[in-house]
Every structure is written in C-alpha cells, then in structure tokens.
C-alpha cells in the first residue's frame, strides 16, 4: 500500500484530497503545519510527500530543505510533489532546482493529478 504524506493547511483541500487518494487505495497522513510535517518526515517512511508551498508557519521549500537531513537530493526529487497557487516563474524555477514536480492549484484535471500522486503515470 502506498504511503502518502499530505502537507496542506486548507481544511477542505486536506479532507477531500485525503478521501480521493484513499479511494485510490493509498494510506494518507495529513499535516497542516510545516514543523509537524518535518517531524513526521524525519521519523516515518513515505512513498510520496505532497507539499503545499504556503503553509502557516514555514514554506514548503523549508520543509524540503529540512528533509535533506534524511533524504538525498535524488530521493527528494522523486518523493516530493509541490502543489501551489503561486505558479510564478520564480517559484517554478526554485522547484525545478530541487527536481520536484509542481502542480498549480486549482488542478487542470483532478484525475491526472491523482494519477501523478499515486505514481500511476
């Protein structure tokens, strides 16, 4: 079973994305703040980490930086998927430095997005 960590602070997105992913057969863990998410990442093993950029306490990039303590750059590029409403060139550039995939919110197509999260495409 695929283990996914979802870092997102909007309750409605949290809840529905969690349900949608669970329907696809994933086990989803949800965190709303960057700090608690980092604790989880350093302690537990996840196949995929879906990370929003604008969190209440820190940014998604901070979470990725902290994750370097445990994961190599290669692993980070594979594991992390960034979701953000700010798809400015600057953000995309920064994300591409980590090699992560970036999905702009709202998703153009929800099913495609779910496929990406599940690693099915």
């Amino acid at each position, binding site marked *: 079973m695929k283990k996914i960590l979802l870092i997102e602070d909007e309750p*409605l*997105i949290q809840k529905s994305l969690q349900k949608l992913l669970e329907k696809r057969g994933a086990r989803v863990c949800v965190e709303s703040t960057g700090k608690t998410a980092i604790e989880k990442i350093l302690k537990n093993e996840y196949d995929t980490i879906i990370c929003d950029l604008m969190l209440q306490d820190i940014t998604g990039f901070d979470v990725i930086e902290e994750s370097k303590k445990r994961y190599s750059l290669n692993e980070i590029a594979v594991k992390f998927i960034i979701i953000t*409403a700010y798809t400015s060139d600057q953000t995309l550039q920064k994300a591409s430095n980590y090699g992560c995939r970036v999905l702009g*919110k*709202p998703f153009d197509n*929800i099913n495609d997005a779910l496929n990406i999260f599940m690693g099915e495409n």
Partner: protein
Amino acid sequence: MEDKSNPRTEKDTRSIESRGHDLSSHSLLEFEIRKFKKNLKSNQSNLKQNDRNLFLNQIKNESGFIADIDLPLKDLVKTLDKIKRTSSLKELLTTLHSSNIFRGINKVQYLIHRLGSTSCESISVDDSGAHSKKVPIDKFNSLFTAVLKSKTKLFDQGHFLSDIIETNGYFIAESLRLKGSNLIILLSNNSFLPPEVTEFRKLHFISKIMQENFEAHIFKDSMANRKLLAHELINNLSLKISIDKDSTEEIFKQEIDGHIITIQNSNTDSATTIYHHERISLLGELLNTLQHELSNPLFGLNLSTSMLLMEEFNEDAISTIKDISSSIKRCEVIIKNFSHLYKDETTNSKFNLISLIKETLVLAKSESKHILKNLIFDDKLADLEIVSNPTWLSQILFNLVINSSQALNASSIEKKRIDIEVLEVDDAIEIFIKDNGPGIGPELAKEIFKPFYTTKKTGTGLGLAICQNLAKKLGSKLELTDSSNGACFKLSIPNEKNSTH
C-alpha cells in the same frame, strides 16, 4: 541737502571710512587685473609656457619623479592636460592608467568613501578598463587606518586579509583625506616581489596630482550619484511620476547618463497618470489578495465536489453537485481573469481581442446590469489575436462602458443598450462603443477629454482623460464620433497582423 545730512554725521564718517577702505582694496584688485591682462596680452603662449614650467618645476622639486621614470616632459604635460579635461572619475582613472606614468604598474585600485554615504566605491583599473563596485564601509575604514598608520606603505596581500583588495601579491598604498571624501590608492604589479623605489615615487606623484583633480571629480560623481538615487526613488514610488521624453511642455529637464528626465509642466497628463497608477496599483493589490485568499477555499470546494461525484447519489443530488461544481469553476475563471486584467504592466503581449472584450464586459456588469449589451463582430475576427497591452486596452473599454451605463442609468430611456462593434480596416482594428443614451452635445464634446471635467456629482473628471492617455500609450486613437442617437466612441488600434517583425 543740508537738512538731510545733518542728523547723521556719525554714520557718514563711518561710511566714508569704509568707503575709503573699499576704494583702496578695489584699486589693489584692479591693479592685479591690469597686471594680469598686460601679461596675457604681451604673450599668451609665453604665459602658458611659464605656467607649465612652473608646474613642472614644482613636481620636480617635490618628488624627483621625472628623472626617475624618464618621462618626456611633453608627454607629462599632455597627460596632465588630458586629465584636466576628463568629465568623470572613471574617465580620469582610465586616462591616467593609459598614460606613461603608469608604465610598469599592472593594476591600480581606488577606494573612495564619500563622507556621509553608507557605502564606498571601489574602482579598479587595469588594461581591460575600469571596473567599479560597492564595498562595505567597515572594511574600507580598517584598510584606511592600516594604510594611514603604516610607515613603509608596503603591504603583502597575503598577510593583509581583506577581501576588498583586488590586487595580488605586494602592493603599495596611500590613504588620503580629501575634501568631503576619503581615498585609498593601491598600486600593484600583481607580482609577488616587492615593488621598486620608483614605484613608491610614482605613488607619491600620483597622490599629489590626484588630490586637486580627484576632489572635483568626486564631487561631480557624488552629485550624479545623488541624482541617480533620486531617480531610483522616483521609480520606486508607489505613486508613479510620468517621465515623458517627447514632451514639449517641460519645466524641468535633467540629463542622467544619457536619459533625459523631464517633469512636465502640464498638470493634465501627470495628474491623470498619477491618478490612474494609484487606482491600478490599489486595485491590483486588492485583486491579488482576493485571488490568493479565495483560490484555496475554491479549490477545496472543487475537490470536494469531485469527491462527492464519485459517490452514489440520486439524480437530483448529482445534478445539484454538478451545478455547484460549474459555479465554482466560473468563480475560479473570473478571479483569474480579474487578476490578469489589473496587472500594472507596461509590456505588450499577444491576446485574443474578442475574449478580452467579453471579460471586460463581465467586469462592468454591476454598473450595466439592466442594459442590453451587444458585441458585434465578424466571425473571422473571433480568433483575432493582436499585440498590445491588454490591461490598458481593457481599462479603456471598461471606462467607456461604465460611462455609457451611467449615462443610460441616469436617463429615462427605455430599452437601454450598448453596442460594441469590432471592425477590421486596412491596418487597424476599430472598436465602437455606442449607446442609445442622451448623447454628448457639441459644446460638451470639446470638454470631455479634459482632465477634471465632469458632469457627474461624484465624478473625478479623469475617466476619459485617462482613457485618452492610455490610448496614446497604445499608439491608438480614441475619439468621439458622430452618432445619430446617443454617444459613440471610436478606438482605433494599430493591427500589425501582416508584419514580419
């Protein structure tokens, strides 16, 4: 006469005394001038020659430099003349470097701190030219004192760890306190052997001839810097000030590095521009905040409806959920379009004209609720893409539609309508905004584009002035055209569809 002079005897004597004094000094001055003129007349070239010889003697006496570097006097005089004519510090330094005085020296670095400024400038000159950069003041100060305290003035860069020094190996340095600024001069061969005695003399000589020339240039440069700073400040103001190169009505004209900045006398353009920018930046900020604050919950709604649609419900429920979903998507699109339309950007882009007009009509909906709006265009124009500034164009159209709507709403006309017609003519696109309202009389027609002219109680009178200003910036023309019924505005936009560039 007597009556007048009597009461002020004491004062008079004093003034006479002082006048006497004035006279004596005056005649002295006149004598000097006369002497000078006489000399000048007697032999002009002789005088120059004398001056030069005097100057060269002075140099000889002070440094013993000429003999050491074996520099022909002629060359030296030429260089000094050239230096006097340079217009900027950088030019002065490169001129100096290319002259024979610097023969044998590979790199010279000048560190200048203008007193009162928060950073210092470092200019290093080598064969490739002059390069300047900013250095922190604390590093400058420690280097300055170190050089000042040193007796030998000889340093090894390896021992003297300071990342502001751009030379390698040994260098000799001099700290100078000039009027209004502190200066450090570093001379280096970029070599790891200590410099020779002649190079010390060169440094001494350079610092001597620099002192007077530097002061003037540093002052000039600092004035230029201040102007640049002011320019930067003006550019960064949230309230933009218009800078118009083509204006003829300027009251103030200043040239900074080739850019001519004119601040216009006519309060018309600047007032509308300021008002426009103020409005746009405020609106843009508001819309940005709205977009970011609303897009998250909307996306949540979007996701939850998708989730619900996967459940089993009866048909009624499903159709309701679908309605919710499509409304959410509409909200997302509207917010996205809003933020596109109100970007305070000055760049052109390619966009679909008809969709831009449609989006603009959505924006104007609140004011034009009960008015029938007709967008008329030829089918072949549906996919027409033009290169222009979508923000400005939309604002012009928005203003015109709002104006028409307000005129219609204030009237008692039945079947209120606004027609927006798009036509393609030779090399332009014409957009007509026509209403069936009360129209604009010939007397008013002369006034409407003037700023601060308004017929509305709460109007600023800037709407149409802004429109015309924006149209001008787009290279297009906005005019009031004759109409049998109501008001009709025509906006002609250049259309370079066939252009290859």
